[in-house]
C-alpha cells in the first residue's frame, strides 16, 4: 500500500496505533445549513479494500457527508475515526495529508491550464531554481496515465476536452494523491459505458491495493457490479448498511424512497406527426460531418454514441451555440438560420445542456431567478417589466412538479444538491413550452424516483406533440424512452434503429464501428 506523507504515517510509525477493522468510522454526525438539516445523527463505516456505495435520493445528504470527510465542511457534532484514531479535519488539505482524497460531483478543473498542470496543482515538481519542472511534470502525468490506461495528452488544455475526458482527468488526479480513502461522488454521471468499464478496472485494482473507496451513484446496475456493500440515506438520516449481494434492486429503491416505484420508463405510445425539425448534411469543421436526420412531432429521438462521437456538438450547433460550417436546418419545412441561442428559442427550441456548472446554473442566483431566465425571453414580461406574481407562481408550481428539494424559492442554487440543480434547469426549459426539446444527459445525477418522474414528463410532452431529441449515455434510458435511436461514431452518424429493433448490442455495434 502507498504510504502517504501524512501525520497518520507518523502516528503509525510511533507504534501507538490500535489496529482497527475500519479505515473510517463516522458516528453521530450532524450538519445543519440555514433552513435545512442536511445530516441528522448519521453513521458510516468503511472497511479496507472494499468499495462502499452510498445511495439515496437527491438531497439525502450524501455529498454533504463526503464533504465532511474531505475536510470541506466542519460537522456541527459527531466523531470521525480514521484507522481507529479520532480526527478533526479542518481543511481539504488536511484531509489529503491524512490520506483522504475526493472526486467531486461537479468538475473542478481549471479550463485554461493543461491536463498535467491541473493534476499536479500546488505540488508541481520543481527544478533547481525553484521553478516548475515541466518536463518532469509531463513524465509524471504520462506515467500516471500509463498506469491507469488513460489515453490523453498531458499537454492538452482542459477546455478542449469533453466532459467525460475531464472526468477521467479528475479521477487520475484523485488517484495521484495515493490516498488510503478515495471518495467518488457520482463519477460516472458524465461517462459512457466504455469509460465506465475503464473506471471499474481502475477501482478494482485500487481495491486490491487495500484502498477503501466510497462510491456515490444513482445507477443501480453499477451498485451490483462494483460495490461490496452499501449504505442508504434518506432525508439526512442513516437508513442502513447491507452487503450488495444480499438485496434486490427493489429492496434498495424501497429503502431510498420509502415507497415502491412501479414503472421505470413510462413511455407512452403516441401518434407520430409531421416532421418538425429536419437537419441535412450538417457539419462543423473538424468536429462532425454530414449529419442528417428528421424528428417528428411526438417522436423521441434517442442519440447514442461514445464519448467524443460528437453528439453534444451536434446539439450545440442545432441550438445556435456553435453555428454550422455547412448544411441546413429546417423547422416545419422552412430553412432557418441558427446562429445564436436567441434565434433557436424564438423557433420554439429548448436545450438542456450537459455541463450544468459551465453552461447551466447561475450558481449565485436563487432558484426563482434560475428558473425564469429562459422563459422571460418572450413571456411574463409586459412593457419590459417582469410580471412577478405570474412568474413566481409558474416557477413554484414547476418546482413542485419536479419535486425540487429546496427550503424556498429564494435559496441560492449553489446550495442545492447536484440532482436538485439539474431539476431546476429542466424546469427552466419546460417553462418555455418548447416545440423542440433537446436534452443532453437530462437525468444526470438524478435519483431513481425523480428520474421516472422526468421520463414521465418527457413522455407527456411528446404526447402533446413536442419533438424530442435525447442524448444519453445511459443505455436503459435510451432504449426505454426512444422511438428511434440515432447512433454516432467519431463525428458521423453510423445508423438508425427503430424502437423494436434497438438492443444494447446493436447500439454498441454501431457506436464503435
Amino acid at each position, binding site marked *: 500500500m502507498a504510504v502517504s506523507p501524512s501525520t497518520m504515517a507518523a502516528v503509525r510509525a510511533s507504534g501507538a496505533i490500535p489496529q482497527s477493522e475500519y479505515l473510517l468510522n463516522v458516528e453521530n454526525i450532524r450538519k445543519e445549513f440555514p433552513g435545512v438539516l442536511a445530516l441528522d445523527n448519521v453513521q458510516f463505516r468503511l472497511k479496507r479494500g472494499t468499495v462502499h456505495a452510498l445511495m439515496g435520493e437527491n438531497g439525502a445528504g450524501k455529498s454533504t457527508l463526503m464533504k465532511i470527510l474531505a475536510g470541506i465542511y466542519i460537522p456541527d457534532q459527531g466523531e470521525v475515526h480514521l484507522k481507529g484514531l479520532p480526527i478533526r479535519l479542518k481543511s481539504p488539505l488536511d484531509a489529503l495529508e491524512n490520506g483522504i482524497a475526493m472526486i467531486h460531483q461537479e468538475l473542478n478543473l481549471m479550463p485554461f491550464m493543461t491536463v498535467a498542470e491541473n493534476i499536479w496543482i500546488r505540488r508541481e515538481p520543481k527544478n533547481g531554481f525553484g521553478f516548475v519542472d515541466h518536463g518532469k511534470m509531463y513524465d509524471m502525468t504520462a506515467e500516471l496515465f500509463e498506469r491507469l490506461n488513460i489515453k490523453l495528452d498531458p499537454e492538452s488544455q482542459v477546455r478542449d476536452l469533453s466532459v467525460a475526458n475531464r472526468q477521467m482527468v479528475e479521477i487520475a488526479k484523485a488517484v495521484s494523491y495515493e490516498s488510503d480513502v478515495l471518495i467518488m461522488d457520482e463519477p460516472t454521471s458524465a461517462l459512457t459505458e466504455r469509460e465506465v468499464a475503464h473506471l471499474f478496472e481502475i477501482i478494482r485494482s485500487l481495491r486490491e491495493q487495500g484502498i477503501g473507496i466510497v462510491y456515490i451513484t444513482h445507477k443501480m446496475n453499477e451498485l451490483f457490479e462494483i460495490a461490496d456493500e452499501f449504505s442508504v440515506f434518506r432525508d439526512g438520516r442513516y437508513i442502513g448498511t447491507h452487503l450488495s449481494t444480499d438485496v434486490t434492486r427493489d429492496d434498495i429503491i424501497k429503502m431510498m424512497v420509502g415507497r415502491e416505484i412501479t414503472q421505470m420508463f413510462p413511455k407512452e405510445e403516441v401518434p407520430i406527426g409531421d416532421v418538425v425539425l429536419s437537419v441535412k448534411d450538417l457539419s462543423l469543421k473538424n468536429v462532425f460531418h454530414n449529419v442528417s436526420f428528421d424528428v417528428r412531432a411526438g417522436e423521441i429521438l434517442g442519440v447514442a454514441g461514445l464519448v467524443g462521437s460528437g453528439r453534444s456538438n451536434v446539439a450545440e450547433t442545432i441550438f445556435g*451555440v456553435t453555428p454550422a460550417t455547412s448544411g441546413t436546418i429546417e423547422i416545419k419545412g422552412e430553412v432557418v438560420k441558427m446562429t445564436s*441561442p436567441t434565434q433557436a428559442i424564438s423557433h420554439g427550441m429548448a436545450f438542456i445542456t450537459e455541463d450544468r456548472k459551465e453552461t*447551466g446554473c447561475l450558481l449565485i442566483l436563487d432558484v426563482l*431567478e434560475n428558473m425564469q*431566465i429562459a422563459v422571460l*425571453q418572450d413571456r411574463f414580461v409586459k412593457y419590459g417589466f417582469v410580471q412577478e406574481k405570474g412568474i413566481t407562481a409558474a416557477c413554484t408550481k414547476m418546482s413542485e412538479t419536479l419535486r425540487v428539494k429546496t427550503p424556498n424559492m429564494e435559496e441560492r442554487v449553489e446550495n442545492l444538491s447536484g440532482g436538485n440543480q439539474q431539476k431546476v434547469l429542466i424546469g427552466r426549459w419546460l417553462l418555455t413550452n418548447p416545440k423542440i426539446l433537446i436534452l443532453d444527459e437530462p437525468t444526470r445525477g438524478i435519483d431513481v424516483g425523480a428520474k421516472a418522474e422526468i421520463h414521465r414528463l418527457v413522455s407527456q410532452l411528446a404526447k402533446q406533440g413536442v419533438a424530442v431529441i435525447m442524448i444519453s449515455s445511459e443505455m436503459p434510458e435510451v432504449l426505454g424512452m426512444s422511438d428511434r435511436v440515432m447512433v454516432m461514431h467519431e463525428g458521423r452518424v453510423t445508423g438508425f434503429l427503430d424502437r423494436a429493433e434497438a438492443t444494447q448490442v446493436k447500439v454498441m455495434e454501431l457506436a464503435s464501428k
Partner: protein
Amino acid sequence: MTSEQVTAKATTPALGRKHRRRMPPEVNILLVLIGIALVFEILGWIFAGQSFLMNVQRLRIIILQVSVIGIIAVGVTQVIITGGIDLSSGSVVGMTAMIAASFAQASTWARPVYPALTDLPFFIPIGIGLGIGLLAGIINGWLIAYTKIPPFIATLGMMVSARGIAKWYTKGSPVSGLTDQFNFIGTSIWPVVVFLVVALVFHIALRYTRYGKFTYAIGANVQAARVSGINVEKHLIKVYAIAGLLAGLAGIVTAARAQTAQAGMGVNYELDAIAAAVIGGTSLAGGVGRITGTVIGAIILGIMISGFTFLRVDAYYQEIIKGVIIVAAVIVDVYRQKKRKV
C-alpha cells in the same frame, strides 16, 4: 406563499417549516454609515468643539458632493454587476462638461467657443452632453462585446481618449459664461433631485424589469446566460451605454454647479464611483449588487471626505485614507466570495 411552505414542509421534515427570510444586505451597510457618522460626531465635539451633523451647511455640501459621484456610481454598479468595470466615467464627465458647456454659453460672454451658437435653449447643450456620454458608453460596450477585449482595457482606452478630447476641445482653456437656464440644474438642491431620480429609476430597472434580470444573469454566468437565449453582446452594449449616459449627465451637472467647465473636471471620479459601488456591496466578481447599497456607499464616502476636512485632516492624508478604504472594501468583497464557496 402557502405553496412554498408546503414544499419546505414536505422536503425538510426535520426542521419543519422554518422559513428563512434573507435580511436585505443593505442593513449592514446602513449600520456602517450610521456608525461612521456617529464617530465623526463624537470626534467633532472632542477636537473641534462643535457638532458634525447638526450643521445644515455641511450636510448640504455633503449631499451635493455625493450626488455627482452617485449618478456615476449608479451606472458603474450595473457595469460591475455584469462582471465588468468602467474606468472611463471620470474622463467622460470632463469631456461632456466641456462640450455641453460650449453650447450653453450666453451671448454676453466675450469669447464664446461658438460665437454663432450662443443663448441656445437649455435642452440643446443637455441633449448634446447626454448624447456624447451615450456615444462613449456605446463605444465601450461595443469594444467589450464584439472584440472581446477585457472591460478594464477598453474603458482604460476611453479614459485616456476622453480626457484627451476634453483638453483638445478648447486647447485647455475653460468654458465660461454659461446661461442661467443651463446653470439652473446645478443650483440649490437640484443635483440631489437628479441623483435620486436616477437612483430610483435604475433601482426599479434592476429589480423589476427583464433588463435587470438579464444583467444579473450575465454577471452570474455568461455562458449559461447565452445558452438561455440572452443576446449577451446587445445587452452589454446597453449596460455600458447607460453607464456612459449617466457619466454624461454627471458632467452636465458638474458644469452647471461650477457655472463653468474645465478639462480637468471629474478626475478620479471613476474610482470614487467604483468605491461607492463596492462599499455598497456590489461584488467585483459580478452577479451581485444593488442600487440602494451604492447610494449608501456614496454617502459613506461623502461623509468621510467631509469629516476629514472638518477635522482638518491634511488633504494628502485624506487621499491615503481613501485608498485604504477602497482596498478594505474589496478585501471584504473577496472574503464574502470565499465564505460563500465553503
